[in-house]
């Protein structure tokens, strides 16, 4: 045991004196975690995360201005009204995500809520940002609904509007008889409904159906009528806890540190062989397994130390608190064991330091790319997400996130941890079997 301890201490001492290796193992993951955490946490101004759009109001009506005002009020959009040419250029040069055109006739169509063509909005989007286009569409639909919501909030205005619509329907000659008959039945009933909506002290529509009659006293009161209520909340067992962007950037940063440790120690085994120190180790009165156990122990200790240091930093500086400390310990140990095994396998891939380093990093980078170490898996196409299951990096991130903020139960944690330990054992066994003890 003292021989293994001596081997571990020797490798840790060598790592501490290898500045490049130390930086890659400890500093790089920290930079990664802070960099991506900062990007996604809006540091540097709230506007950095808003969808920046240009609006071309070709209609210039009260309705179109009202629509632009609704759009501008939303917290997710930063909108500027400009000419069509400028709007197109700003999108083409990537300065803005999209331009939104409200064409002539937009207001008239919006006013005719129940007949005629719907108001149309043209959106020109940056083709490289299709993922955000769906989000923008949702915001545009919500803005459209706000008009209706506004009218329902003011029953008197709505009743007057219904009378006006009734007159226009009766005077119009471009409505089919069947549709006209339907509207003539609908509008009076609708007006009656609007006039009977319960009101608050200021005369606006106040509470949800049922509450006023006492049939749903336990339901929370709604401040105004809404066509649809959308509540957004994070999917985590402790929904009240705000999930910081650092909570997911730190696991990814840590994985890069783990990868750096696996690569460094894998290469160091090859260096022992090419430098001749392995010959001397083999002539010492210790078994071969002890030599490899010493290297594995040093890799394990370094990985755990690096991970612990970063997690402590995340906790005390960036307020990333694990939902379960014990499950986090389980994740850290599993990740370390998994990548110690991978380190052992990497050490047999090349005969020289250069080839081992090149091949090792190539393998690890592919693992990182597939496993979500570079780009979160959510942004990958479905087939790639499927393929990513073969990457230990995916399971490592999954285990860390599970303990940090996904609120995994012990049973749920068992899956990624078992995969990592299994991969580690298999790789270690293969590596030991294939290891070259001499040049």
């Amino acid at each position: 045991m003292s021989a293994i301890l001596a081997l571990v201490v020797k490798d840790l001492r060598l790592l501490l004196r290898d500045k490049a290796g130390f930086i890659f193992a400890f500093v790089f993951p920290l930079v990664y975690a802070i960099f991506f955490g900062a990007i996604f946490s809006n540091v540097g101004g709230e506007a950095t995360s808003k969808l920046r759009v240009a609006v071309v109001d070709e209609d210039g009506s009260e309705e179109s201005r009202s629509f632009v005002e609704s759009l501008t009020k939303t917290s997710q959009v930063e909108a500027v009204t400009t000419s069509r040419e400028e709007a197109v250029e700003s999108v083409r040069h990537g300065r803005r995500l999209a331009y939104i055109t409200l064409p002539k006739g937009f207001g008239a169509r919006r006013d005719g809520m129940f007949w005629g063509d719907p108001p149309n909005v043209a959106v020109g989007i940056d083709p490289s940002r299709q993922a955000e286009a769906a989000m923008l569409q949702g915001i545009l639909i919500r803005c459209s609904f706000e008009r209706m919501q506004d009218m329902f909030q003011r029953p008197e205005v709505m009743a007057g509007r219904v009378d006006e619509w009734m007159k226009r329907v009766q005077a119009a000659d471009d409505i089919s008889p069947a549709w006209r008959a339907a509207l003539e039945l609908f509008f009076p009933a609708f007006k009656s409904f609007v006039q009977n909506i319960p009101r608050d002290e200021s005369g606006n529509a106040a509470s949800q159906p049922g509450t006023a009659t006492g049939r749903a006293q336990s339901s929370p009161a709604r401040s105004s009528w809404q066509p649809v209520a959308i509540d957004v909340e994070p999917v985590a067992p402790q929904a009240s806890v705000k999930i910081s962007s650092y909570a997911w950037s730190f696991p990814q940063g840590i994985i890069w540190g783990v990868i750096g440790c696996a690569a460094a120690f894998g290469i160091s085994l090859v260096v022992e062989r090419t430098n001749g120190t392995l010959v001397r180790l083999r002539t010492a009165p210790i078994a071969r397994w002890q030599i490899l156990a010493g290297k594995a122990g040093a890799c394990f200790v370094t990985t755990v130390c690096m991970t612990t240091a970063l997690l402590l930093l995340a906790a005390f500086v960036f307020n990333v608190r694990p939902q379960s400390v014990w499950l986090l310990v389980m994740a850290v140990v599993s990740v370390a064991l998994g990548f110690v095994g991978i380190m052992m396998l990497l050490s047999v891939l090349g005969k020289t330091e250069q080839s081992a380093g090149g091949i090792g990093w190539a393998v690890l980078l592919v693992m990182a790319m597939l496993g979500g170490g570079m780009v979160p898996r959510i942004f990958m196409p479905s087939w790639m997400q499927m393929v990513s299951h073969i990457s230990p990096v995916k399971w490592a991130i999954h285990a860390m996130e599970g303990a940090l903020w996904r609120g995994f139960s012990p049973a749920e944690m068992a899956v990624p941890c078992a995969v990592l330990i299994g991969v580690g054992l298999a790789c270690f066994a293969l590596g030991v079997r294939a290891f070259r003890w001499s040049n």
Partner: protein
Amino acid sequence: MINLSRLRKTFGAIVAVDELTLEIHRGEVFGLLGPNGAGKTTTVNMAVGLLKPDSGIVEVDGLGSPENAAVRRSIGVAPQEMAIYDEMSGQENVSFFGRLQGLAGRKLAERVAWSLEFVGLADRRRDRARTYSGGMRRRLNLAIALVHDPAVLLLDEPTVGVDPQSRNAIFEKITSLQERGRTIVYTTHYMEEAQRLCDRVCIIDHGRILALDTVEALIARHGGKSVVRAQTAKGETRIETDDPVTELKRLQETGGLEHFSVDRPDLEQVFLNLTGRRLRD
């Protein structure tokens, strides 16, 4: 001290060592010589337990095979490659390998200090090994081999790439170790080193022993004749002879000897006579 009995080792179709038998006596400096690819390294690797022979027996100090870890404790190895950690100090290197040999505490500290003092590195013990000169690195290599006070020392080309001062210092250390009763196995390509240091020399080629004896006996048996080059009144002459003194007297009496030189056979001549002058890869 070390008995190798009918050792055989093959690598595929190549027979590296072929039924090799030899005995190295306690307290002697034993030279193992041979051209590249002769089987020296394979023999040495089997002797220290780095390689398992296909057949035959290796026994060290009556304890058994060096494949047994406990037997390896009585062997110290200074490989030809600098088997040291550049980013560790001389003291850390020696201390680390001392721990692997089972030393600890005060005993370890004493042995580390003695080893570094013995090879003349005590003053530089705290400096990183990468700052050492070639000669200092060779001496550190030797100190690591000595730290656990082994009965047998294997020195593989210990003077390659060092300056004359360091080489001379290493020679003195080897002589000193022999005086302390250590058995030393010495492999080298430098024949003058073997001639100067070794009590007995074994020359092997193609995995077999070509000759094994004291240096004097090998020269007498395989060195050939002395060469006398003389300038007389009759002109220049070259004579191969077993008795150069008698030959010089004869030249003096018959032709008026003006000046002369005598080339006596040495170990290099023995080596070339036994292994041939054909280049080896």
